[in-house]
Structure formats: structure tokens, C-alpha cells
């Protein structure tokens, strides 16, 4: 059965269109959800990248108080897959749906590069783009993706973590879906997250 993926649009979710294109590419159905929604009926929730509310105060801090966070919390508690990419990951940590926090990169710079990461559950290596100023993970979350040449200074080189059925990644699988983009490694990774999720081992 076709998986229904609800993509949340926060004010400043500039990664919405990229996420929607990638979700359709892997054969799933896109449901556009708004940050003010108080309920939804989808199989997977995806919080896209961007800069919700202009990253005011801290990335994700304002978005974490959005009405849509409560139904996302219920979805996660019922075992439903929740995926946060980039700013979406930051929102999930600010909302307490994932442990830890994302701090300014060790370099003090916005880091943008194609980076190598390893999927800890399978040992597979992927090339995925990173584009973030606050990508330095601080916390003790279970690592799903690990940087192999970490430009962020994250604890234990974390590039993505998982807690229950909630996943957050700082790299962008939805921007690695075509040869023209320099990598197609995002397709299988995203497809697997949408089809089967990633649960804490």
C-alpha cells in the first residue's frame, strides 16, 4: 500500500519542495500539513529543512511550540515514523521528541559540503549533502548516521539519531536523489525510512 507522508510546512520551511519531490520519487504520497494543524491522518510525518521562524532565538525553538507538535507527539507515541531533516531535526530536539540539542558548528561557520556518513544499523556508507550552521550534536541519543569526516564537531560524530520511531538527520537525503546533484544515495535511505522506519535497536 502506498505510504502517506505528511510534510509539515512551518513559516520558513524552505526545504518543503525538495522533500516533496523526493517523497514522490520513492513512490510515496505527499500530504501537505501546516504548522497550525491539530490533527492528521498519515503514515509518516516529515519535518523538512529550512529555517522555521527565521531561526529566531534558536533554530527550532519557536516551531517546537507549534500546534502541530502535539499530534506529532501522539503519532510517535503510537509507533508512527517521524523524520526530521536539518531544521526538522532541530525542531524535534527543541520539542523534546529527540534527546540532545544542535549547537553552532565547531568552526563557527555555516558548513556546506557533500559528506560521507555511515548508517550504523547496516554499516552502509552514503554521500549526502550537509548545509547547516547549527549541526553540532550535543547529547546521548542513539546514533543512526555517523560522520566519517565530521565538519561539525558533533559528539561521537553524530550526523543523525533515532529514538523510538523518531529519526533526526542533519544531512539531506532529499537533496541526493539525482546524478546532477552529485549523489543518488538519498533515494534508498529515504525510501527505507518511509517504508519501514528506523527504530531504536
Amino acid at each position: 500500500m502506498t505510504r502517506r507522508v505528511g510534510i509539515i510546512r512551518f513559516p520558513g520551511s524552505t526545504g518543503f519542495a525538495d522533500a516533496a519531490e523526493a517523497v514522490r520519487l520513492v513512490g510515496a504520497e505527499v500530504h501537505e500539513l501546516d504548522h497550525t494543524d491539530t490533527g492528521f491522518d498519515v503514515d509518516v510525518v516529515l519535518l523538512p529543512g529550512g529555517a522555521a521562524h527565521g531561526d529566531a532565538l534558536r533554530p527550532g525553538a519557536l516551531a517546537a511550540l507549534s500546534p502541530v507538535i502535539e499530534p506529532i507527539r501522539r503519532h510517535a507515541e503510537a509507533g508512527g515514523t517521524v523524520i526530521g531533516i536539518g531544521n526538522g531535526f532541530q525542531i524535534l530536539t527543541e520539542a523534546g521528541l529527540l534527546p540532545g540539542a544542535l549547537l553552532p558548528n565547531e568552526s563557527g561557520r555555516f558548513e556546506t559540503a557533500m559528506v560521507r556518513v555511515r548508517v550504523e544499523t547496516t554499516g552502509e556508507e552514503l554521500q549526502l549533502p550537509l548545509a547547516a550552521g547549527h549541526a553540532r550534536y550535543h547529547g546521548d541519543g542513539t546514533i543512526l548516521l555517523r560522520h566519517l569526516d565530521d565538519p561539525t564537531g558533533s559528539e561521537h560524530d553524530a550526523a543523525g539519531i533515532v529514538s523510538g520511531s523518531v529519526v533526526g538527520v542533519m544531512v539531506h537525503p532529499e537533496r541526493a536523489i539525482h546524478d546532477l546533484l552529485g549523489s543518488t544515495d538519498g533515494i534508498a535511505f529515504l525510501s527505507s525510512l518511509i517504508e519501514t522506519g528506523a527504530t531504536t535497536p
Partner: protein
Amino acid sequence: MNAMQFNVQVEITLRDGVSDSEGVAIGNSLPELGFPGIDEVRVGRIVRFLIDAPDEAGARSRVTDLCDRFLANPAIHEFTFTLDGNA
């Protein structure tokens, strides 16, 4: 009920043990910028606002709640604040 208004200043800093990349960058640059002998630079943030509350205890409780749930992130921050009832 005569609600009072308080002037609040909240100071938010990274907890000890959380590496402060901005503080490190500043600290590393100070000597060559002509400011030797300065160590352990930590950069924080100040937020000021006015808040309504029936009394000082009420204001303190409202500000603490605001900091706990929004202004500071307990995973990385600590905070202090001052209240001035002569707003």
C-alpha cells in the same frame, strides 16, 4: 486585583561542559587583537521584556516557566534573571 508590571532581564548561557564555539573563536583571537591575558570566554544572550504579575513571587514563577519551556533549552543552557518592579 492590581496587577503589577515587572522589568525582566534574563541571561542565558551554555552549561559548563557544553563547548561554546563562539567563545572559543573569540578567546583564540583576543591575544592577536591586542587583548592578552583573557581566558575562558563564554558568550551568552540577554533577553529583556516586561511581564504582568500580581506580585514578585508570581512574576518569578512566570519567568521561570518561560525560561524552562522556551527561552532556554535545558539540554544545553542555564539561566538567571533579575526582576525590577518599578517598570
